[in-house]
């Protein structure tokens, strides 16, 4: 058992054991997963952080190499090797790592992600409450789900039952002086108010790359990247150089299919129109990843619903796509300008 108030000393002990600790912290009433200093006490009463764990393991902006054109040299910049612990993540965030692993580690191995991932301990705090956007149970997970966690802390009154789930987790609790609880009765998990029906979705997606419904469901979308960048499983990236006359640096940065320049190549824009970009988002998560690694690239964390500035609701869209076959009405013709 560990009391809720003792989690700050777990942070302190992890920091002194040499870990970089990331934990939920509050800013202006919103909670973000961010680097925690020795002495920080994690937020525990929130539903979920605004940002997902990919923020740490697949950073939004990662320097890859410095190059020098004068002496024609390239110096690669390694991913940080220090051990890190993601403390008090939620079960859906931990589950998102299993999806990222399946995509990024095999068969092609993203060596930077692999290195970061190997050095990371995932200590999940199971959920005590859910909000109207949460739909993890519809994606096969749940408020007390263990997928992807090395340790799960299950709420039991003012304390947590400590359940190590992997060797890495066992080693970690030893290092920070926590004891495993074999028994104990955790609080019952919160009841989700949201169910997203996905029957028939995959079959519909298999057959309906061309459908007027794509225009219908994406009509409110203003084409920003908020849902993509907050999504814990969206993992598309771009490589970009920042070059001066003689020297430069190469970065890997987040990218997403919402943007007009996404995968744009010489003379060809593969996804003209917002509907085509929104379609890519849904297809990638609910068809391509299923076809490729037999996982749905969605954990039902609900961030895309919670933070969409214009109320686009993926759960509603997933349910509406297979309904009734054809579109409600013909959409407008494609235009040249999109954003």
């Amino acid at each position, binding site marked *: 058992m560990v009391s809720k108030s003792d989690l700050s000393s777990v942070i302190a002990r992890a920091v002194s054991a040499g870990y970089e600790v990331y934990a939920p912290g509050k*800013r*202006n*009433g*919103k909670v*973000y997963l961010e680097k925690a200093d020795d002495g920080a006490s994690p937020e525990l009463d*929130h*539903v979920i952080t*605004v*940002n997902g764990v990919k923020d740490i393991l697949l950073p*939004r*902006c990662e320097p890859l190499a410095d190059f020098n054109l004068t002496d024609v040299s390239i110096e690669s910049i390694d991913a940080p090797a220090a051990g890190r612990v993601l403390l008090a993540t939620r079960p859906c965030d931990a589950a998102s790592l299993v999806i990222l692993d399946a995509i990024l580690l095999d068969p092609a191995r993203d060596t930077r992600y692999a290195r970061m991932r190997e050095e990371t301990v995932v200590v999940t705090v199971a959920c005590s409450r*859910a*909000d*109207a*956007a*949460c739909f993890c149970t519809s994606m096969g997970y749940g408020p007390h789900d263990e997928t992807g966690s090395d340790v799960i802390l299950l709420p039991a009154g003012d304390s947590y039952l400590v359940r190590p789930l992997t060797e890495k987790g066992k080693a970690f609790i030893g290092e920070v002086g926590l004891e495993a609880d074999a028994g104990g009765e955790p609080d019952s998990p919160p009841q989700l108010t949201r169910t997203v029906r996905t029957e028939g979705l995959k079959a519909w997606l298999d057959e309906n790359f061309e459908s007027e419904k794509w*225009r219908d469901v994406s*009509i*409110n979308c*203003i*084409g*920003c*990247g*908020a849902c*993509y*960048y*907050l999504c814990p499983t969206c993992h598309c990236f*771009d490589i*970009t*150089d*920042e070059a001066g006359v003689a020297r430069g640096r190469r*970065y890997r*940065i*987040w990218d997403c299919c919402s*943007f*007009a*320049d996404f995968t744009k190549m010489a003379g060809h824009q593969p996804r003209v*129109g*917002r*509907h085509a970009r929104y379609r890519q988002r849904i297809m990638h998560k609910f068809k391509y990843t299923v076809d490729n690694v037999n996982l749905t690239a969605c954990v039902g964390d609900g961030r895309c*619903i*919670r*933070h969409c*500035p*214009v*109320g*686009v*609701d993926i*759960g*509603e869209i997933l349910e509406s796509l297979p309904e009734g076959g054809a579109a409600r*009405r013909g*959409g*407008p*013709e*494609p*235009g*040249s*300008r*999109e*954003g």
Partner: protein
Amino acid sequence: MQESSQNRLREEAGKLLSAAAVEVVVGYGDGHGGDGVRPLFARTPDEAAGLVWNDACVHNLATYLSREPCRQILLRGGKVGIVAKGCDARALVVLLQEGQIARESVHVIGMVCDGVLDPGAAVSGGTAGSSGAVLPKCRQCEVQTPPLYDTLVGDPAGAAAAEGDPLEDVKDLQSMSLEERWSFWTGHLARCIKCYACRQACPMCYCATCITEKSEPQWIDKPSHLKGALAYHLIRAMHLAGRCVSCGECGRACPMDIPVDKISRYLAGQVEEAFDYKAGMDPEATPAFRTYREDDPEDFIR
């Protein structure tokens, strides 16, 4: 009063659609499961019956005029109906002045507005505006009655009067030293993830290709490190100076809680001070950066 305005709005939008005076009315509808409010594109009189008007109607719908399907309708000479609060109508005025829309191709249903609720509380799962507080911009609103409309819904005489200075909340920036301001902004912008929600929510950001998307050459650093974030937000600030209508949508859209709207509102204050001009208040006015006077101030050029 909101209910009678809502009925009137539905009636007007229904009439426009049944008479085929417009192809679509862009307004507000219920959010999923009745939770909050979100944009609604009504294309039939039946759909117009789903339009809502209440204090959760926060979005500036003018941003949709430069997007599919409105853009396509306007390009082929069709007409679009749009529901606009005062702040939204200011954006429409700027779009008119800048030749982005033709006056006759847009039917503006102007809403007399007493202010909309701060949707901040919606983030934790409550309904929009469950905090019960109106947005700061509404407390200092100067346009309860829209400066541009074809149909006005609501009673202008009944609108609450503005209190205080519209630029009140950027005054704290003005009082900061240069160093303090630098640390204020670098602190905020270091968190920018470059999702461009601010740009996309902005009705004034209608460029067909944003300079951030131009890669030959790459004018703006793409990475979201501080330098890249500063480059983007600075160029956006410059593009919005004298054009920003202070609707605050960029700040509302930001998932990282960066007060993006303060940047352009600060500049709006500077333009007002130097040129006595407020964007979008008067369709007949000539925008600040389209006039030249011998006695134009230049003391801000340093």
